[in-house]
């Protein structure tokens, strides 16, 4: 009996941007966990911190990266946690145990989303071609995250540094569409 699982990605085998001004990489099989709870409940906040090692970001459009986890603000009572491949299993168990009896929700969504990293000198221009979000540094900088659209896909995008580099999270079923759109959009920038 086969007891090993071969993971496949919707991005397997797709072409990458040909030039050197935009680079695109999949962050393969990143663990992803959705957390919901009441930020006014101090007990909820401290129990979560015990597990994650960092404070939940309560400021809209920010994320915190610490140790094994990157914790993104999604809405006033919702966060998206990224962790290493297969790290989601232990995280879900730890959060559920810590939050026992506290009104909250912890869901493993690792297979629901795909994350890709878009970076390079022309990455900002590629994003501006398909999204209504203002990517100018006066409006969107490293340390920020937001939900928005890119063409017809709903995405979550976070800026990592000033290169600039971005992590773009999209639904699994939209991943191929978004990847190919990025590759096509990058073509004019070489």
């Amino acid at each position, binding site marked *: 009996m086969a007891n090993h699982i071969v993971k496949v990605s919707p991005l397997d085998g797709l072409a990458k941007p040909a030039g050197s001004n935009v680079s695109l990489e999949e962050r393969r099989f990143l663990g992803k966990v959705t957390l919901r709870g009441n930020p006014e409940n101090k007990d909820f906040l401290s129990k979560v911190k015990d597990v994650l090692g960092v404070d939940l970001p309560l400021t*809209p*459009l920010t994320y915190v990266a610490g140790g094994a986890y990157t914790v993104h603000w*999604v*809405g*006033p009572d*919702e966060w998206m946690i990224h962790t290493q491949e297969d790290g989601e299993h232990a995280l879900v168990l730890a959060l559920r145990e810590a939050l026992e009896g506290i009104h909250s929700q912890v869901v493993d969504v690792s297979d629901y989303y795909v994350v890709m990293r878009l970076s390079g000198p022309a990455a900002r221009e590629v994003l501006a071609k398909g999204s*209504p*979000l203002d990517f100018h540094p006066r409006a969107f900088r490293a340390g920020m995250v*937001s*939900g*928005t*659209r890119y063409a017809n896909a*709903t995405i979550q995008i976070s800026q990592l540094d000033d290169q600039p580099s971005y992590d773009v999270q999209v639904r699994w079923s939209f991943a191929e569409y978004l990847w190919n759109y990025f590759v096509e959009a990058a073509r004019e920038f070489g």
Partner: protein
Amino acid sequence: MLLIECPWCGERDQTEFTCHGEAHIVRPKNPDELTDEQWGDYVFFRSNPKGLHKERWVHDHGCRRWFNVVRHTHTDIVYGSYKPGEPAPEVSEEALKGGKK
């Protein structure tokens, strides 16, 4: 294209949102006791003003939260947003006459 202010994410392009009609429609607590006409009023009839309109919007492509917007149905000017449970922003006569925010 409108710019809509999400109370959490700030001013964003209209295409990140959808509008879900008039706000503050309260579901009757006693539907069994209503006449068909009263129930029909609740389900189908809206104020449909030419002027200021309080309406429900949801930031589907952003934080996915619901909130309310005051919009002028003739000029399409958006006078402000407010969270559920908060009072609507006042719109002054001057602002209305000037056709500006």
